[in-house]
């Protein structure tokens, strides 16, 4: 019984250390740029600002990067190889239809939708580390910013996945 208690205590003492090791940032910096829009996408500049802010917020949460820098900030040459740049284009935006959504919302008809193409590249040699496609659907009753939140979460998740695969391979 005593042995069991000691083992339990030891595992509890070691667990936080192991968790901390997992959360250590593997990359120095990541720069998220403001996403551009293809012609015909009717979204306000405020939406792009919010998406940019949300993306930086979500990238911070991944704990993969020591620092999430702002657009256009300088990076030390020594850190460039361990730094990433994220660029993206909003390729499609559909406002959705409230009436159709109310009647056939369960089938995804009438939903507000946003499509983005995102590129993840290494800062030092601009090598492409992943092309991410994101598609977000929300109810047209919700605000556009909620859609940005969803898109940012998806991008950050995909970036984390791509960088982990890159580290393994």
């Amino acid at each position: 019984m005593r042995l069991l208690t000691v083992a339990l205590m030891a595992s509890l003492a070691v667990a936080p250390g192991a968790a901390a090791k997992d959360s250590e940032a593997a990359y120095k910096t990541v720069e998220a740029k403001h996403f551009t829009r293809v012609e015909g996408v009717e979204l306000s500049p405020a939406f792009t600002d919010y998406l940019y802010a949300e993306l930086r917020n979500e990238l911070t949460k991944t704990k993969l990067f020591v620092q999430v820098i702002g657009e256009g900030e300088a990076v030390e040459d020594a850190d460039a190889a361990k730094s990433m740049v994220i660029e993206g284009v909003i390729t499609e935006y559909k406002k959705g239809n409230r009436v159709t959504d109310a009647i056939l919302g369960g089938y995804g008809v009438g939903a507000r939708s946003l499509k983005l193409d995102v590129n993840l590249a290494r800062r030092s040699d601009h090598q492409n580390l992943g092309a991410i496609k994101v598609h977000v659907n929300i109810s047209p009753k919700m605000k556009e910013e909620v859609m940005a939140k969803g898109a940012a979460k998806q991008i950050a998740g995909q970036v984390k996945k791509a960088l982990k695969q890159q580290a393994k391979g």
Partner: protein
Amino acid sequence: MAQLGVTEAKMGSRGVVVVQAGILLVCALTPFSVRADEPKPTPENTIHVQLAAAVPPQKFAKPIKFFISDVIDRSGNPQPILVLKERGGVFLDRQPTQITREAIEQSLKAADLLAADATSADLVMQIYIFHFGLAQGSGLDFFGKVEFATTVKNPKTEESQQIQAAGTSIANGAMRKKNIQKNVQANIEGALEDAVRNFLRGTQLREAVASLMKNNPSAPVAAASGGVAFAQGDGSSGHNFKFKFEER
């Protein structure tokens, strides 16, 4: 029959008069109730925004000194110190222009890049604030945004360049008034720090400094213009700088 019609018409008009009087009364009283809801700054709903720590600027090839001549609010916000109207309001204790100036000066001073006055400065900056405070978010959180443009001018060559800087921060929403104030304060401080870092560590500033100092004469500023390098001609302390300004 005609009399009946007239009677009905009279009754109708009396009703209309009563309704009109009611509407008039409501209209007369509404401004007072609205005015009563307008938040006013008190010590309880006022926050103090400042940088938690100075932002280390980038290193320049040559030692350089900056001076901030003016900070101008171009946000078009009639109430710049009111950052949140709901729940009795949240106010800043100083104007955004003053907060921004202090934040940049604090960072420049910590890195020994701040000149004591305009005459001893290599480059003089004029800052235009476009946004300071909260912006429209998802409704579930607070979205802080600080955005400004800076005109960096070499007083000796009269050349200038414009630099854009922006900072954002997203903080969790809150229900209690105390937590709302705390989160709004943290959010605006985060956005301010982000904007100052974006400015001082940005490639735009590096390129502007390299370009403006390229043809700089080696003689000190005071000697070059007979003692007063900055207050030239009209003595307006830089108010009448000529530069191309990007209208938003």
